[in-house]
């Protein structure tokens, strides 16, 4: 295993050196090339479920593999074209484990940017929504101290990249810098086969983000409003509910994530004077469906001792809506339908639907070591407590999985930029 890991590492390093050498030739031209990557290994103590970093992945560490390199490993390359002072374009492609369990390259960013002034710009194309403080660069692990941002917060909105238009306006008041970003977009993502396939999509996503910076401090506010639809085979359950008269229709309408309003609000703050940092975020989303109303937050701090940055994270996710529902009133039904209705009520309250709202908290301890120029090595230990019968942010539940258990995760990642 360790030999295999080392050869992958060497291969990747050789690759980035080759590409890095080529980039020099671009220096004075219109195009510039930059890349980033992470080689990661993760172990989870829970053998009957998988730990991973996003719901869009089909498996991870724990059940599928004792040690998984799929959780955090990726490599990305970006070409930036600066046609003139106003007009530029970005194309970023990432290779990582995708929903279909392949490592097919995917376009992460692809947009054209026009700067009317250095403080007012418009982008058109594929953009990552900066939902949380580090959402838009969460895949560039070299850019932050942790192994990965806390799952409690960062998996709460099932959005990745969007296609649309983005307007950014920045203004200064004394030493205070305020940046306001408005995005109008849409998205369509395929869901992993582990939940039966299907997709999640939205046609009109309106978002507003505002960042205020003063010296080493910054505060960020986020708001997203969208009408989204999620479909996967398990959701045919709601069609069955609709056959059961007004009560069934009401249940279906309440929980079916079909053309439902999803509102997300978040606030984040960071203070990073260099020698140490403290950062935190509080987020809430209401999906008006079985996906539920959720709240999550984290706080993290670290100290930088030369090349070493030890840190901790405390994160918590809770359900603000019911994670169970009485369902159809069995006593009101003809005897021949009671069995079916009871099974449907059970399915509604299962881990696939209402019990899928994560209720958990995690204490993480880790350290970043800046090994050499452009390379960092991080290790992190996460201790997660699952509550309320929830399976938290785990995926791929297997028969026999015990809710309310503790999950210990150990990860090591090697990050690099080139």
């Amino acid at each position, binding site marked *: 295993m360790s030999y295999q890991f080392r050869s992958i590492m060497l291969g990747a390093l050789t690759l980035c050196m080759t590409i890095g050498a080529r980039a020099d030739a671009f220096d004075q031209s219109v195009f*510039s090339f*930059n890349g*980033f990557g992470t080689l990661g290994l993760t172990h989870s103590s829970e053998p009957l479920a998988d730990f991973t970093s996003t719901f869009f992945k089909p498996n991870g560490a724990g059940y599928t593999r004792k040690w998984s390199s799929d959780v955090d490993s990726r490599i*990305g390359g*970006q070409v*930036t074209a*600066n046609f003139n002072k106003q007009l*530029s374009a*970005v194309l*970023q492609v990432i290779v990582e484990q995708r929903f279909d369990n392949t490592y097919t390259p995917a376009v992460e*960013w692809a*947009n054209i*940017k026009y700067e009317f002034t*250095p*403080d007012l710009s418009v*982008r058109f194309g594929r953009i*990552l929504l*900066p939902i949380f403080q*580090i959402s*838009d*660069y969460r*895949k*560039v692990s*070299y*850019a*932050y101290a942790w192994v990965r941002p806390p799952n409690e917060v960062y998996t709460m909105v099932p959005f990745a990249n969007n296609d649309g238009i983005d307007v950014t306006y920045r203004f*200064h008041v004394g*030493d205070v*810098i305020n940046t306001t970003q408005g995005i109008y977009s849409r998205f369509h993502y395929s869901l992993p086969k582990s939940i039966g396939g299907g997709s999640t999509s939205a046609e009109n996503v309106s978002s507003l983000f505002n960042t205020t*910076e003063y*010296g*080493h401090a910054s505060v960020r506010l986020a708001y997203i409003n969208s009408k989204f639809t999620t479909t996967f085979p398990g959701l045919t359950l709601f069609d069955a509910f609709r056959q059961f008269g007004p009560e069934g229709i009401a249940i279906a309408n309440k929980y079916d994530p079909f053309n439902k309003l999803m509102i997300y609000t978040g606030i984040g703050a960071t203070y*990073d*004077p*260099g*020698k140490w940092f403290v950062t935190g975020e509080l987020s809430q989303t209401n999906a008006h469906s079985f996906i539920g109303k959720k709240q999550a937050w984290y706080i993290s701090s670290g100290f*930088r001792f*030369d*090349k070493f940055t030890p840190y901790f994270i405390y994160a918590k996710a809770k359900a603000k809506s019911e994670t169970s529902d009485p369902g159809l009133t069995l006593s009101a039904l003809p005897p021949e339908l009671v069995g079916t209705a009871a099974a449907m009520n059970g399915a509604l309250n299962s881990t696939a639907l209402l019990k899928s709202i994560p209720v958990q908290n995690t204490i993480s301890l880790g350290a970043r070591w*800046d090994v050499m*120029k*452009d390379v*960092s090595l991080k290790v992190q230990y996460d201790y997660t407590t699952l509550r309320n019968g929830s399976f938290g942010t785990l995926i791929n539940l297997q028969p026999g999985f015990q809710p309310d258990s503790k999950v210990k995760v150990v990860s090591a990642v090697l990050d690099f*930029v080139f």
Partner: protein
Amino acid sequence: MHIMKSIKLSILGIVAGCLSNIAMADVVVIVSAKNKVAALRVQEVSDIFLGKTSNIAGNVEVIPIDHLEGESTRDEFYLKTTGKAPSQLKAYWSKRIFTGKGQPPKEVLDTIALKKMIADNTKLIGYIDKNAVDPSVKVVLTLQ
């Protein structure tokens, strides 16, 4: 006892003196001698070199230019203005580059070339070792 103490003190003094010579050479922020900007504050210089602003003193456009990575003047400049060590600065620019928010300042081969570029172009701003200052450029901030 007394002698020992004074020997210790003088060794300390020498060590401290050496250290300050190596690490504490003053870095100065410069613009063209023809530039009308008189002085800048640390926060303003930090914002300029981190790409957070492109205007100073009301509405004067500025373009920062940089030394090569690994130069001691560069490491000292960024530590004193932004509080960032080289790897933190690299992390900062990684997040800007890969979110399409911008590229770091262009790098110039050496101090002589950098000084000449700044002397000739009133839009440019840079930093050099205090000992390299000459009348073609104007010091707008001294970092001690």
